């Protein structure tokens, strides 16, 4: 066991897999010699050479297409898209190709590509370094969509993603790369050192794709969330004193409906929280599914707290971010509903 932040955990997942499986290759913008703008691939090129950790031209569509071709030819590529905001030039290759290869060739061809990309705001990145586009991928059948909320899961899920024969889009909530964040920007930053999920085995292990986790047990209200907001949810539970059950979705697609529904049936109340723009966001799917599954147990309408339906404004990051205040107010109000 070692103390790792999320960057180190992600790096370690690469390292473990590259060591274990010579077909694993890494490509992306600045991932090689430099080790990535967030340092997630630091040291890998020195260790595995520049034929396995490849600096790519700035062309997200090209990176994903090349990864697809490599995957078809027996490699297991891990592609980094520098920011999730820059994944759209590769959208066609993901949606029309990567996601459908297996289906359209009835299983003869597939490409086990993992696409890693930092997402979310809270780092003063402005509207083009803060987006959370997971909903745009969760709607696409044929790919799996993952977002870890801590170092332990990040490593375990990334190893599962790399090992998966299905393509995976792996979002990394960059706000918590270096430490958990409870959604109050006034407080000083904390590190992963004191967090139990900052304890990470150095070797190989997996966290399975497709399983949500109850990260805080509770009886009164369920908060369903993922990524950075997991920590905000725990803080909101503390702050409000409401006995919340907090569930970390971890895999957006395929969704572990049972874990979520069991909790909501138990508590009778559900608040969904994510950073992305609310309208048409992934929270809509969660709410639609859970109102259906838990209709007869629900004591109040399912709520959603999310980013506003605007781009992520640089100066109003903390007004946009669904932080502690907004989430706490939301669950307080929900408890008032009879």
């Amino acid at each position, binding site marked *: 066991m070692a103390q790792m932040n999320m960057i180190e955990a992600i790096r370690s997942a690469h390292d473990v897999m590259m060591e274990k499986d010579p077909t694993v*290759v890494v490509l992306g913008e600045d991932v090689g010699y430099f080790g990535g703008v967030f340092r997630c691939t630091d040291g890998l090129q020195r260790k595995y050479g520049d*034929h*396995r950790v490849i600096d*790519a*031209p700035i*062309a997200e*569509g*090209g990176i994903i*297409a*090349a*990864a*697809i*071709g*490599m*995957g*078809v*030819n*027996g*490699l297991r590529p891990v592609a980094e898209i520098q920011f999730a905001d820059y994944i759209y*030039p590769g959208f*066609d*290759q993901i949606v*029309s*190709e990567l996601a459908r*290869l*297996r*289906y*359209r*060739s*009835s*299983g*003869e*061809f*597939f490409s086990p590509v993992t696409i890693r990309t930092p997402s979310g705001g809270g780092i003063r990145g402005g509207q083009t370094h803060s987006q959370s586009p997971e909903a745009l991928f969760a709607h696409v*059948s*044929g790919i*799996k969509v993952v977002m870890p909320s801590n170092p332990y899961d990040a490593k375990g899920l990334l190893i599962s993603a790399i090992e*998966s*024969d*299905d393509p995976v889009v792996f979002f990394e909530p960059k706000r918590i790369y270096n430490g958990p964040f409870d959604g109050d920007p006034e407080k000083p930053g904390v590190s992963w050192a004191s967090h139990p999920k900052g304890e990470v085995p150095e070797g190989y292990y997996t966290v399975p794709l*497709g399983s949500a986790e109850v990260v805080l047990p509770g009886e009164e209200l369920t908060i369903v969330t993922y990524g950075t907001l997991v920590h905000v949810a725990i803080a909101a539970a503390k702050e409000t004193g409401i006995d919340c059950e907090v569930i970390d979705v971890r895999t957006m697609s*395929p*969704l572990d*409906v049972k874990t979520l529904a069991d909790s909501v049936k138990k508590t009778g109340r559900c608040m969904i929280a994510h950073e992305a723009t609310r309208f048409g966001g992934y929270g809509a799917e969660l709410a639609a599914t859970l109102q259906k599954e838990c209709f007869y147990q629900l004591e109040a309408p399912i709520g959603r707290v999310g980013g506003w339906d605007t781009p992520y404004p640089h100066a109003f990051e903390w007004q946009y971010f669904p932080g502690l205040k907004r989430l706490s107010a939301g669950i307080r109000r929900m408890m008032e509903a009879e």
Partner: protein
Amino acid sequence: MITKSRLHIPRPTARPGDEPDFSYLELSPAGSVDKPAIGSRTRDIEYLSSGLVRVLDDDFEAKGPWDPNLDAKQLQVALRWMMLTRALDDRMWQIQRQGRISFYMQSLGEEAVSIAQGMALRPGDMCFPSYRNQGLYLYRGVKLVDMMCQCLSNTRDMCKGRQLPVMYHSKAGNVFTISGNLATQFPQAVGWAMASAIKGEDHIAASWVGDGSTAEADFHHALTFAAVYQAPVILNVVNNQWAISTFQGTAGGQRRAFAARGLGLGIPGIRVDGNDLLAIYSATLWAADRARRGGGPTLIELVTYRGGPHSTSDDPSKYRPKDEWESFPLGDPLERLKQHLIIRGDWSEEKHEKLWKQLVSDVQLAWKEAQKSGTMTEGPFLDPATMFEDVYAEMPANLESQRRRMLEVLGGE
């Protein structure tokens, strides 16, 4: 206000009602373009992208440095594959017209591309074709009946009913699955070739797009990645003059040949008579050798003509002269190879006629066979429950429950 417009709008030389006019096509006489050494520097062989590599001349004689000197047997085999492609296309076109399949796309007039390049590549080389490369699938061993079953979406359909007709694949033959999305396969081929190089193998990749598709982003991605990593890949542009209703000038072919598109990245380009099996074979072999020896990518433009409508959904009489193909200066690839063989004394009209009949009957037999696995109206039918398979490697719970739901007589949920 728009009357003052200064915008250049590319317009084809002829529209319906006009005389066909191919004066825009720059031609070189057969045998006139030098064949450089495989190791030549790109900058020394730029001429290959503006000339037109041709072997067969107007009298059907093979000429010049690019003559691959194939023997009679090889040429007859090539002719046979081209004829088979055409016979298949003919039949399937009619079959679609009779409403017995939903859609079809011919390669009429472009058969030499798939066959010549199929011959020049090795079995371990991987092909990423477009929807007009059916000849490649045939050449690489896909049976007529399997092609037909794909078009029928029947119980023997290699795609399990999931793809439109003509969207074949062949893992065994190393021919990739066809995408409905133009050009997406081009940079994938480059990635495949990069992997081959990374693994230290000497397999190369080849891919095909149309003239119109060169405008897509993926064309650029392919060229960039191929150039940067010197990937062992052959990137083919099949310039058949038309992209549905727009002529090749709409894709930027008016000022410079498509073969020149990679020059700015240091990728050599060869402009080839796409209706001359010998020239295509020879240029492809040159590019394949170059790639295999570490010389990197080559862009090959195959100058040809789309002899038929774009697809069974198209009506070209709306946008081009009816008789354009007959006036196309590079003729019909099949006819040209046939005449060449006859001139060599290795073929005859009688043999040709006989072989054609044979192939037509093979196709007919295959069609009979194919129908045994089901037609659009008669069983056996594919099991709809299979539509939930292969979305993922293993079926997730939500798809399992949707499959159950569908089987409960298509109930809503």
